[in-house]
């Protein structure tokens, strides 16, 4: 994610440059910055460099490291599980972006109009609250909610005449189940972002369009959506980056199964690195994750020029 950095504003601008004062500021600056800088080097920059280093090695944490050149990457691209894991991850991320952005926008529009106060308040809270929980609690709860013998979903689907699938046994229903759980869990975040975004649509503009004879649908497409496009873009980027790294519910519920139907790239990384202890190979996977996220995000920024309205 790129962040706009404001031009530096020097507090002694205008004053004649005095060496001693300047040196004192440098010392103070380093002193204030040093805790962050040390932690940054030890826990972010250093590990980043070390991960690249490790990806050229073969290592199981116990025997000495061995330099293998590009072997890990060669192995990565002939690994039969990788295309499957990539496909699952992209499918999950795509489904996640589409359901979150549209779902949250519709929900935000639905509650952002004059309506019964209790209903509005209750639904807003019920939609937002799950976002505050942990994946551990949510994944375990939903494992039971989707249980084919005593779960809520199977019981009520049966009432309306639908035979519920055995979600985590049937390979074609496992990933959709995870997508659904993730929607319930994180829609609250996107929803709040959309509610805040709706507040940025100027009421005068909507009034003006209505006076000119636009109907609700036209107002939505030609006023609301363009005015909200920076917020929509933000939601797309954030949801994609988060979804691409999906791991917790898969580790807790399916472990990548059945039949690798929910094997995602980070789940694969975890199994390679922390269960098989192929540290070098896992580092290569991690670098792949990083490169893909950068590439897709970069692509989205390029495409954004076409549809995001900049005020």
């Amino acid at each position, binding site marked *: 994610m*790129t*962040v706009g*950095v*404001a031009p530096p504003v020097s*507090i002694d601008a205008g004053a004649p440059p005095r060496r001693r004062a300047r040196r004192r*500021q*440098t010392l103070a*600056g380093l002193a*204030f*910055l040093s*805790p*962050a800088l040390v*932690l*940054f080097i030890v*826990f972010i*920059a*250093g*590990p*980043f460099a070390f*991960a690249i280093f490790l990806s050229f090695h073969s290592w199981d944490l116990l025997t000495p490291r061995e330099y293998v050149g590009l072997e890990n990457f060669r192995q990565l691209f002939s690994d039969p599980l990788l295309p499957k894991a990539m496909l699952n991850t992209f499918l999950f991320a795509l489904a996640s972006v589409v359901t979150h952005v549209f779902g949250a926008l519709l929900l935000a529009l*639905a*509650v952002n*109009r004059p*309506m019964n*106060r209790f*209903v*509005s308040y*209750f*639904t807003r*809270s019920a939609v937002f*609250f*799950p*976002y*505050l929980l*942990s*994946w*551990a*609690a949510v994944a*375990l*709860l939903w494992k*039971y*909610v989707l249980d084919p013998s*005593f779960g*809520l979903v199977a*019981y009520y689907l049966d009432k309306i005449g639908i035979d519920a699938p055995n979600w985590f046994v049937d390979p074609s229903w496992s990933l959709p189940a995870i997508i659904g759980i993730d929607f319930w869990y994180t829609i609250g975040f996107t929803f*709040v972002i959309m509610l805040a975004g709706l507040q*940025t649509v100027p009421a005068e503009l909507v009034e003006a369009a209505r006076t000119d004879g636009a109907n609700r649908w036209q107002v939505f497409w030609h006023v609301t959506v363009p005015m909200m496009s*920076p917020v929509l873009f*933000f939601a797309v980027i954030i949801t994609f980056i988060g979804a691409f*790294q999906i*791991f917790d519910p898969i*580790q807790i519920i399916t472990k990548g199964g059945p039949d690798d139907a929910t094997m995602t790239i980070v789940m694969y990384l975890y199994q390679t*690195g*922390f269960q098989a202890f192929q540290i070098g190979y*896992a580092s290569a996977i*991690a670098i792949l*994750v*990083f490169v893909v*996220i950068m590439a897709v995000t970069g692509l989205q920024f390029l495409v954004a020029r076409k549809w995001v309205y900049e*005020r």
Partner: protein
Amino acid sequence: MSLRVDVDANDLLRPRERRRRRRRPGAIAFDVVVLVIGLLMAAPLVWLFAASATEPGEAFTLPPKWWPTPFSTENYSRALDLVPFGRMALNSVIVAVISVGGSLLVAVLAAYAFSRLSFTGRDKILVLMLSALMVPAQLTIIPVFVLMRNLNLVDTLTSLWLPALINVFAIFFLRQYFNSIPRELDEAARIDGAGHLWILFRMLVPLSGPALSALAILGFQASWNNYFGPLIFISSPEKMTLPLGLVTLQSGQGGAPAAVVFAAIAMVVAPVLALFLAFQRNFVASVATAGLRG
């Protein structure tokens, strides 16, 4: 991403003022649809609390329980017997408090340097730090694990909070906030003989209440819910935090009965629900402001 959106985030969950007037039947039907969506979202949690407080044998009978009859706290007492729940809750609190307090202290100091002091390389360092926001946690966790192993810190609470002390997003967020505070205030304080520490902790920090509380809420939430870190660093039950403890209860040693797991989940969810109901506006505001301004 920089997004200049000014919202009154405090009001996001509060319904809009309604003009008193007759409403069309269509509008009422729409309200019903919205209510049903809310009920569907809430249903799993209602079921969680109802079933977990029902007698173990009756908890999962069909139709599903929406009210705990016959009422029993046995699932809760069995969950407490099976895992050191109090210890895990304490671990979660310790890790969250040190992570949040420590990372905010580090961030406040760094933000002051980035906002108020000028020295060579300052903006280059800031850009370098910000580019780290793009690095996914999975990339750094392997080397950090190796580091913790060499420091003999694996399976300690330290391994959970120590890497959390650096929060680049918080540094940037506070730097932006400090930049919005007029520099004339510093000048005035300096003329009165105040030093950097005084200006920072007696003036800027007290003026940054909203930014700090938003960061504290988000940081606490991230730490409290963290599963990936503990999964990799922690193995003994008495060192586990609540999320890992929950999963271990369900999967470890054949696994506890579903009703007991439900009671444990309910014990994890209930405090969050209570805090949410008490401080709802703060939660929503911090998500909206930090989300959009981030």
